[in-house]
């Protein structure tokens, strides 16, 4: 289990230090060991886990701040990192951006949080909503006995992430499907690897203790339904006609009833109040690639290079992609570049050794092209240019994995509002992850 947690600034000074177990020994030693071996290491330390003198240090870095969990035991590393990320989320929820300034201003709060979410090194309830009920930044109003007992039962109870008695005049919920699509394509247009990692983020403003049920076009569910309703000819058509997607793996927020998911593959839950991440998933099959990049590179002698790049958008013409940026790497001995492009703006950025081509908006089923002439300086280096891939950034208003939200039902038996009274918003955003084409 986690033996202690330290927060450092970029200089390696300790801002927060909380030790949960004695086995990490002298606190000074552990603190110094991490500073010397990781923060001030001569070579940049890339591994997030460092073993120093039989003590393991797990660290994450947020801007200039280092969070390090220390343990002498053989812990589940994934658990420790999950905890560290959660800790970051909690801190962000309490005081915004994690920065040295903010941490120094809120150090009492942070110690309070650390006392609450880790007990003898074991992670406890780290749900922001629940924490906020009893760890506040304002002075705590004197609570009645009743309220105090409620806190205990709520925190230790079955549904630790939501308190009872929430009331909204307007019952509203927002559902965002956020995806990032990753691609590596050969110059000939063959897909070498592609996957989508997505998140479903929900913002709920619902009264009472509502029971929600979330449905999407998961292949297994659709097929099951297709079989189940095979007798009803009309409906089976509907079922098979809809496109379904195969989800490779997914993880859920703690509020989702996993037993139900395992048995029926239905996602039902009582949501926490406010924003939370309902699920995370990954797909690798039948991915809609929003853009296709066609590179053409020609070396003219030793001192000149001609590059032509065509991009094609590959989605419904009614949709608009935004923030498109194509980055064409240039050789290291480039001495001059001329660029011509039809659409958008292109510029040679010497500091990044690349031509950057930006297009604000682009509709579906269009194409655009750029051509560049690159002058080279002869060098005595015999190494050939490695030709790094052309990369792209964009944002599209649909889910490249093909995921569709089929329904999100809300039941609140105790209060008098029904599913129809809840206002629901659904939004899809597809962004580029590492989207590269070799040239």
């Amino acid at each position, binding site marked *: 289990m986690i033996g202690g947690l330290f927060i450092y600034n970029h200089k390696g000074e300790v801002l927060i230090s909380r030790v949960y177990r004695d086995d990490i020994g002298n606190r000074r030693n552990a603190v110094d060991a991490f500073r010397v071996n990781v923060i001030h290491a001569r070579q940049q330390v890339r591994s997030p886990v460092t073993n120093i003198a039989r003590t393991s240090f797990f660290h994450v870095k947020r801007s200039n701040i280092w969070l390090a969990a220390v343990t002498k035991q053989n812990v589940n590393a994934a658990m420790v990192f999950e905890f560290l990320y959660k800790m970051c989320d909690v801190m962000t929820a309490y005081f915004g951006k994690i920065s040295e300034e903010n941490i120094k201003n809120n150090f009492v709060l942070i110690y309070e949080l650390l006392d609450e979410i880790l007990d003898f090194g074991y992670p406890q309830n780290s749900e922001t909503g629940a924490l906020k009920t009893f760890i506040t930044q304002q002075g705590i109003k004197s609570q009645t006995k009743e309220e105090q007992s409620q806190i205990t039962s709520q925190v230790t109870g079955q549904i630790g992430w939501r308190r009872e008695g929430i009331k909204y005049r307007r019952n509203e919920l927002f559902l965002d499907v956020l995806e990032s699509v990753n691609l590596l394509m050969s110059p000939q247009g063959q897909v070498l690897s592609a996957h989508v990692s997505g998140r479903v983020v929900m913002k709920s403003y619902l009264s009472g203790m509502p029971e929600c049920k979330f449905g999407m076009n998961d292949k297994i569910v659709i097929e099951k339904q297709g079989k189940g309703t095979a007798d009803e000819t009309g409906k089976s058509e509907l079922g098979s006609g809809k496109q379904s997607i195969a989800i490779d793996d997914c993880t859920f927020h703690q509020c989702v009833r996993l037993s139900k998911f395992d048995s029926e593959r239905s996602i039902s839950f009582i949501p926490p109040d406010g924003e939370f991440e309902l699920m995370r998933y990954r797909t690798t099959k039948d991915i809609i690639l929003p853009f296709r990049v066609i590179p053409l590179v020609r070396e003219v002698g030793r001192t000149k290079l001609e590059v032509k790049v065509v991009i094609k958008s590959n989605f419904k013409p009614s949709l608009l992609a935004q923030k498109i940026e194509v980055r064409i790497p240039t050789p*290291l*001995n*480039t*001495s*001059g570049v001329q660029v011509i492009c039809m659409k958008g703006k292109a510029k040679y950025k*010497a*500091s*990044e*050794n690349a031509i950057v081509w930006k297009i604000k908006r682009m509709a579906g089923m269009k194409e655009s092209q750029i051509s560049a002439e690159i*002058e080279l*300086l*002869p*060098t*005595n*280096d015999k190494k050939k240019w490695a030709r790094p891939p052309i990369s792209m950034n964009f944002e599209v208003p649909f889910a490249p994995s093909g995921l569709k939200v089929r329904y999100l039902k809300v039941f609140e038996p105790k209060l008098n509002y029904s599913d129809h009274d809840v206002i629901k918003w659904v939004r899809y955003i597809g962004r580029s992850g590492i989207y590269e084409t070799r040239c």
Partner: protein
Amino acid sequence: MLTTIKQKACYSAALYCLTFLNKTGATLTFCKGKSKEAEIKRINKELANIRSKFKGDKALDGYSKKKYVCKLLFIFLLGHDIDFGHMEAVNLLSSNRYTEKQIGYLFISVLVNSNSELIRLINNAIKNDLASRNPTFMGLALHCIANVGSREMAEAFAGEIPKILVAGDTMDSVKQSAALCLLRLYRTSPDLVPMGDWTSRVVHLLNDQHLGVVTAATSLITTLAQKNPEEFKTSVSLAVSRLSRIVTSASTDLQDYTYYFVPAPWLSVKLLRLLQCYPPPEDPAVRGRLTECLETILNKAQEPPKSKKVQHSNAKNAVLFEAISLIIHHDSEPNLLVRACNQLGQFLQHRETNLRYLALESMCTLASSEFSHEAVKTHIETVINALKTERDVSVRQRAVDLLYAMCDRSNAQQIVAEMLNYLETADYSIREEIVLKVAILAEKYAVDYTWYVDTILNLIRIAGDYVSEEVWYRVIQIVINRDDVQGYAAKTVFEALQAPACHENLVKVGGYILGEFGNLIAGDPRSSPLIQFNLLHSKFHLCSVPTRALLLSTYIKFVNLFPEIKTTIQDVLRSDSQLKNADVELQQRAVEYLRLSTIASTDILATVLEEMPPFPERESSILAKLKKKKGPGTVTDLEEIKKERSSDMNGSAEPASVNASAVSTPSPSADLLGLGAAPLTNSAPPPSSSGSLLVDVFSDSASAVAPLAPGSDDNFASPDLASSEVVSEEPADTVHDADELFHKFVCKNNGVLFENQLLQIGLKSEFRQNLGRMFIFYGNKTSTQFLNFTPTVICSDDLQPSLNLQTKPVDPTVDGGAQVQQVVNIECVSDFMEAPILNIQFRYGGTFQNLSVKLPITLNKFFQPTEMSSQDFFQRWKQLSNPKQEVQNIFKAKHPMDAEITKAKIIGFGSALLEEVDPNPANFVGAGIIHTKTTQIGCLLRLEPNLQAQMYRLTLRTSKEAVSQRLCELLSEQF
């Protein structure tokens, strides 16, 4: 050295670039860049800019070219790759402005690698500058050559620089640079620097007016003199006179070269170092002058310091220490040595840690000089005190070294006791070394071997973890070789084992010693056999597998020693934890020992489990280990010197102890061992003395088969046809016909076959019926590698059909100090006369070595003894009455006629020794069968000693004439 020069160039370059770039306002702000990423971006941008400038059509003027090249250099020094701009830098070389030329050279010395195609252009530019007669340009060019220092540079300029160095009209500063440049080239490629008449003129630079030139020249001459001392011999007197001028000068005389009131400390140190390349000067005048100088330096050390600054004392002490090391090097002036020792003694308590360290280190070498050894010993208390109170671990380590060096008989007990004391608190890093040292000292200076045993057991108790295998092997070797301590050792070990927690190494030693000599203490009821066994067995379960295996062997030895506890031991062996042990080795031992103890008769048990023969005396394995730890050079020399001295100072040096054990063992079983040890004592002395030994043998054995002296002219006349023929057939460079060594092997199978300064060849062989296997061990005694090491076994044409030899090739390189093993499989097809030749060729330090040794594979190796009664024997004896079947030889005894030794030799020869066969009990009778693939040859022998005449008569009867002949030849050599 190379890196430091490069580093220096880089630092100066970086500094220069920064100042220059700052001055011109072209500061690269990225040097203050906040993050790595920002810096990389900034640099990429800058590089793109420079590329576009270089690419641009319009030619750059000298200034901007210089600016951009300088920027590139700076970026390179920040750690980024630069792959262009070389051409521009080379262009700068041809400029006439100093600053532009300088940047050009700077860029080239830092960035151009030797295989660049630009090297020709660069060399051209350098040549022009060297010829320019402009001292600054010449200086720049010389610096560039020295900084690059590649082979190509050496090829191009090695001939030219000496000319500049000795030319009459060269400026002082250029001379200085030229000397250092030449030094650098000589260090990287000594073969390219031609030696010529300039060398004699270089020596005279020591008389130069300019002290800078003298300093540079001294460095050069020191390096050159190390390689060719003869050519620079004249430098000694010059250096001495220069040194005396400096030492006696007032501190104000050498204005620029006086450093904190010390006149020219660097030059003094260098001159002293130069003098260390040579023995003490022979000319009494020079010698007197040098002694005077050294005395002055020692006197000055006593003077009160002229300044409180640390630089003053540093400079003074540097000269002093160098002077002391010169005194130690000369090792001829007792007066100076003692003074140096006293001076160092003062430093032992100095508050400066470095001084204490250096003092201890120098004292270590002083301790090995016969003049100052006693003087060093007076400081023993201080050193021991340093060991206890010193804060710095490296100084403590030196103190240990010094204690080790100053140890001799008189103070060994004290020093060993102190080291043992210190061991309990010593740093982990040096514990093992201390353990080794204690072990060696205890062994070397042991007057009383009980003390030795006590010390080592103590050692194991205190620092068991650090006691390496070699140490406890050694204890056992010594205990086994010296029967006067065996009883004591058994008793002490037994007592030590009674401690509730004892180290595994102690259990190992205990298991071995009790197994061998437990019977010596079994009489005491407190250590009765059963108690001994129970004590050992109580430790059994706590030990690792190898130790358990050893303990199992001890148990079976107990079965032999104490038949009364046989059943107890059998019960233990029979238990499931042994008989069904998961470890194969343990299981096998348990099963085999159990069967052995149940089936074998007591006689067989007694033979199988006979007391261990004494170990052949080698170089102490611990010493070898210590040498290995220290690396060659440091300890070795010291060790060598010490060994030489100690061998005459006290009689217990290693070879001597063997003699003792061989001579002073009267018990019958030890006779066999005596036989084993005797040849080894012969092989132990260094090869230089083996010449005289050869002559001795030669004169003694005129009547018998005369062994050959190496290279003797009458090879062919010698009666030993077998060997002489083979030798003459093989025209090897050096034929080491160590016949007497060869003959030793007739009666034994293991030992050292050959040894010289480079190589040791050891043998281990086993024979069964007509088959045999021989392990040849080649030990490299030097610290350098042998290359192309190829041993080949050659059978002459006569031998080929009767002996089948199969060898496996060995690794062609043998590392220094390493040993390689070669296996020879032998099959005897029919009887044979000659011995195969082992020819070894290898390359050692550039010279080709070739040597041939006879491999001791003789016919008698395939002997199988046969026991028979008196009646049988004489019946067969009569059957072989054909005169051709009998061979008789009457010869004079070469060795004392001891019946026991003779018996052992006959058994070693391979035949059975038949007791109570011959009516005359003084006669020896043997019988056996020689197995060859084709036939089996029965063989009877009879040896009749005549004590009055010191003669033997040997009669052999076999079914084959040639066999009788050969066996007779072989056997008569033995007595």
